[in-house]
């Protein structure tokens, strides 16, 4: 089985080759292109699972110490920088999830982008190229053995998210029906926002990377996390903190951007402008998972700073995580767009993962990452299926001549136009319910186990410390977040699947093709049983599998938290209450009504619906001033100071030249130079009278002269 490790480089390479093949050769053949992409990622999944199996069989020495393949890459001064690949228990756990979820999403995309249908997307092949590259980025990130390769993959994903979110940001031909102008603009803005916002985080990570590289001379994880290296980093003081803390915080900045944590979360909801499979890809298996993965991977740095100097790197992770978890969930309550609700749910769930990591528990955070990837992919693909059904229903309604009067504003994403879809789309409905229950955290669905582990961890820390410190607030935020999560999911399923259809599109909606519902069912199975991977009553297998990866650093310790019935019970009760409550309140919502939450919450609801006005705040505080500054600097450069100065120097030079010229003309030129010339000129003018041009005159002069000379000669 060890043989499989040699294939590790292929895991990111295969989708990368698929990308290259589609872009360079097969982009004119849509079916072939998507088959290459799907085949690539499926092959990658096979290899990955082979590696996972090999890791399981290889036992502790690989799971904990890892397998490595260094490759000399970059000559740096007197040393050579190695890049390479590594696999340990943690990587293996990710390798189990990432390519598989990607495969499901790829298969689903074939249906979603209407392969072979008349309304097939005109850039169908390109879409598959991009998502292949996306998958390659994420897989490269997971198998990287050093921070630089991780960062490269990280940025490749950033690029792909830009391309995919903006996938509909331009119109190809006139025959593209389902893209309206407003969407083009929104997609364009969203793509830019996603890239720039995450870029802010990326730059922080890049600085952290450069700092780390400067102080240690290496970026290979195994070497950075050596105890002596951590100690060395802890002993350097930088900006009043140990360097290790600074680096950890900078890296966390990257994670905040990528994993859409507060305050850099703003791009994620807008990222819904991309095609739905992209949302699933970004929200579940890739992109946002990358940030969490990074923090988990770098956990020794966070902990080291925390332990050596009581510096707050780790606490920041927990605080940001808790804030995000609560704050994201509340916004989710007030959104109408089916995908936006899920987007805020993702933000909130990522907050949970950060909470888990911030408490120092690698396994709790990653366990939630894994289960969340399955059920969130499921929910997104399910919502995509609903949207797809609604769009078809809309077309069908249009074909039947039943266009309603407010048809112009129709959005297939708006939950208020849906209703009663559980009868129309049963094969979407049941997996969606599985995903909902998993997200809300009902026993025995996956989310229950993973979320509970985080809350149990917080609870236990609180009990240990005994004070109302950080762990308590984290636990409280988590539990309240769970309640709100259940509420908005109850509201969502009630609005989408229950009640009466509130629009012709919903009336005519029909079930999506098998290529879409198939992946839903597969994912639903994982949403149901995924939690068993680390279930306490099975002895927390995941914990044993990957818990030890940071042992070598001597700062991160893996200790299982015992299953706490009080915590689990409370969160289950809260989840059930919320889910049923939300469902009951919205079950009979009718079109055009003011919705109940809005009635009860009033201005708070408006605040939530407008996402706490964070976007507007950024627009006001950052974007406009920067653009203004750019304009002013340009004016400074071109109009006010720099260039005018240059021109002034030129003008002064020219003025000096003019003055010299004047002097030159009056005194030197006309006096001396021209005076001489004039004198000669006058003399010449007189002299030239002799030049008659008649040859005989000249000859006469010659003859006379000769005679005179002769006379002189003879008589003198």
């Amino acid at each position, binding site marked *: 089985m060890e043989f499989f490790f040699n294939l590790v480089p292929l895991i990111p390479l295969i989708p990368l080759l698929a990308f290259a093949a589609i872009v360079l050769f097969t982009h004119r053949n849509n079916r072939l292109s998507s088959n290459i992409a799907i085949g690539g990622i499926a092959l990658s999944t096979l290899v990955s699972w082979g590696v996972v199996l090999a890791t399981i069989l290889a036992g502790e020495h690989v799971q904990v110490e890892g397998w490595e393949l260094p490759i000399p890459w970059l*000559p740096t*001064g007197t040393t050579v920088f190695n890049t390479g690949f590594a696999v340990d228990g943690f990587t293996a756990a990710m390798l189990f999830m990432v390519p598989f979820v990607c495969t499901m999403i790829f298969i689903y995309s074939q249906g979603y982008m209407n392969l072979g249908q008349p309304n097939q997307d005109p850039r169908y092949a390109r879409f598959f190229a991009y998502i292949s590259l996306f998958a390659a980025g994420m897989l490269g990130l997971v198998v990287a053995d050093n921070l630089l390769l991780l960062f490269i993959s990280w940025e490749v994903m950033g690029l792909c998210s830009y391309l995919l979110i903006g996938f509909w940001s331009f*119109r190809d031909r006139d025959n593209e029906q389902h893209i309206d102008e407003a969407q083009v603009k929104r997609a364009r803005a969203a793509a830019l926002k996603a890239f720039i916002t995450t870029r802010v985080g990326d730059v922080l990570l890049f600085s952290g990377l450069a700092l780390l590289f400067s102080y240690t001379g290496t970026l290979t994880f195994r070497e950075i996390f050596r105890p002596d290296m951590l100690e060395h980093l802890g002993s350097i003081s930088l900006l009043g903190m140990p360097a290790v803390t600074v680096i950890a915080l900078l890296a966390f900045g990257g994670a905040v951007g990528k994993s859409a944590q507060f305050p850099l979360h703003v791009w994620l909801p807008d990222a819904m402008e991309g095609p739905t499979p992209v949302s699933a890809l970004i929200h579940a298996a890739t992109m946002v998972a990358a940030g969490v993965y990074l923090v988990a991977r770098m956990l020794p740095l966070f902990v080291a700073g925390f332990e050596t100097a009581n510096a707050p790197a780790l606490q920041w992770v927990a605080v940001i995580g808790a804030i995000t978890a609560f704050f994201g969930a509340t916004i989710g309550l007030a959104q109408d767009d089916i995908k936006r609700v899920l987007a805020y749910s993702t933000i909130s769930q990522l907050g949970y993962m950060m909470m888990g990591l911030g408490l120092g528990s690698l396994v709790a955070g990653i366990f939630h990452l894994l289960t969340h990837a399955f059920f969130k992919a499921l929910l997104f693909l399910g919502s995509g299926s609903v949207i797809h059904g609604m769009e078809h229903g809309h077309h069908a309604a249009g074909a039947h001549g039943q266009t309603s009067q407010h048809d112009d504003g129709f959005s297939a994403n708006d939950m208020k136009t849906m209703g009663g879809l559980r009868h129309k789309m049963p094969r979407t409905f049941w997996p969606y319910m599985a995903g909902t229950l998993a997200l809300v955290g009902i026993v025995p669905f996956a989310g229950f186990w993973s979320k509970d582990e985080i809350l149990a961890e917080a609870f236990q820390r609180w009990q240990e410390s005994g004070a109302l410190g950080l762990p308590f607030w984290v636990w409280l935020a988590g539990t309240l977040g769970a309640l709100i999560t259940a509420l908005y999911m109850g509201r969502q399923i009630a609005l989408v699947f229950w009640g009466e259809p509130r629009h012709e599109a919903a009336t005519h909606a029909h079930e999506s093709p098998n290529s879409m519902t198939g992946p839903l069912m597969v994912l639903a199975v994982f949403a149901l049983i995924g939690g068993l991977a680390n279930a306490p009553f099975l002895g927390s297998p995941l914990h044993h599998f990957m818990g030890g990866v940071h042992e070598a650093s001597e700062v991160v310790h893996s200790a299982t938290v015992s299953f706490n019935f009080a915590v689990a019970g409370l969160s289950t009760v809260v989840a059930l209450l919320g889910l049923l409550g939300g469902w009951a309140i919205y079950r009979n919502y009718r079109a055009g009504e003011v919705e109940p939450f809005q009635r009860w919450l009033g201005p708070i609801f408006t605040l939530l619906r407008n996402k706490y006005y964070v976007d507007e705040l950024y627009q006001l505080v950052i974007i406009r001033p920067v653009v203004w500054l750019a304009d002013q600097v340009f004016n400074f450069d071109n109009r006010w100071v720099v260039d005018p100065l240059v021109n002034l120097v030129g003008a002064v030079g020219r003025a000096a030249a003019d003055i010299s010229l004047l002097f030159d003309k009056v005194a030197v030129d006309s006096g001396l130079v021209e005076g001489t010339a004039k004198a000669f000129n006058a003399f010449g003018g007189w002299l030239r009278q002799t030049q008659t041009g008649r040859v005989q005159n000249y000859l006469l002069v010659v003859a006379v002269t000769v005679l005179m000379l002769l006379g002189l000669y003879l008589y003198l």
Partner: protein
Amino acid sequence: MDFPFLTLITFIPLVGAIIASLIPGDREREIKWFSVFVSLIPLVLSIVMWALYVQTDGGMQFMEEAVWIPTLNAYYRMGVDGISIPLVFLTTLLTTLSLFYSAYTIKKRVKEFFVLFLMLEMGMIGVFLSLDLVLFYVFWEIGLVPMFLLIGIWGQPKDRPQYSAIKFFLYTLVGSVAMLLAFIAIFLTTGTWNILEISSLGPLADSPALAVAAFWGIFLAFAIKVPMWPFHTWLPDAHTAAPTAGSVILAGVLLKLGGYGFIRILLPFFPALFKQFAPFIGVIALISMIYGALVSMAQWDLKRLIAYSSVSHMGYFTLGLVAAAATLDVSDPLLTSRAIALSGAVLQMFNHGIITGGLFFLVGVIYERTHTRDLKAFGGLSAKLPVYYGVMMMTGLASLGLPGLAGFISELLVFRGAFHIMPTYAIIGVIAIVLTAAYILWKIIQYVFLGEFSEEKWRAIFDPEHWHFSLDMARFEVITMAPLLFFMLLVGVYPAPILNVINAASTAILGSL
């Protein structure tokens, strides 16, 4: 000395220019393709030379020496090391591509254009190869004249080409004069023009005031050429006015002359002074980086935007250089960091040549079709010109430093070095990275390519009567861009072939200061 690589590389373009000037002016086809062919010879020679260069040794190789002007004690001295090899290669590559591209796009006064271009190539290569101050200065000045004419004659009439050309010429000349005075002062105290010898002697050591004056004199010449803020305003004007190939060479190679001068002359001559003034020059580098990026963001003229982005990108170079010069410590961790910073700076020059050269070609692509560079006049072109979109996207991403493409590697190395030696500067400098992403994606990609394509707007700017090639990038344009794209990817994915020589040389230079 066996095979005179350096002499041949330098003077074959001159011979070609002379021969081309003997071809009757109306035989444009012959002149064009002859020039392209001539420019291929130095390209091939520089590749062969790179292959033969012994990479483990960072010092000068392929040295040539002959007495030139005995009364002046000036020698004809040439040599290459790992700093100059990539730059010579860059020069020959970009010249060939520019000539190839111009063969399709230059319509007026064809003969003069190609002859001047070959002469320009000689001047640029000569600067990178000469090891004698007199020779260096002569080549430095030779390059000015053809460029001046290229801007002035073939510039777009509405962009004030004469003004730009004269501004370029005078600006550079001011620096040159200061540099010449400094050179003479150095010669008077050391008695030699030999760059390597002066480096090891440490000129003007006994007269500190004169040394400072000489330092700033030379600094001014190179800073104008690089260009550093606040000596940069000739750049956007010259770029905007110049014909496409001229802009490519201007950004791709001429700016590198200044950078090369810093590394070859100023740093080895005055390491202690450089160290002393490093904090100040570092501030200039930061201003160039951030200021250039901000001004780029405010542009509505595509070419001007890219011109200003050069100011910003050459700021990264300066930061790397300053980091390498900010300490004289040659003990191991610091020497490594300094060498990394210097290698990053040199690689940044190479990358900037490839990337910004490419960007100017791409501006040419759209300008030849529409005769406008106004960002507001475009929109939604990705649907109309998908290949162009793809190529521009890749080049733009390389420019903003996306990992996996060339720009990232050099930025990483620069910051890797800078973070160790001058962390405060580095932290401020990273702001420029975000701004770069913003102006590339927001201004270029979004305004030109994304959004709704409007047939009406397009018809207002595009006249099919004047464009005889395909609407999307024509084959010759793709061929022009292909080598550049290849190098963006190669350097981004596997930089070792280029970085090996650079790294050996920068370690050697810093070790011998």
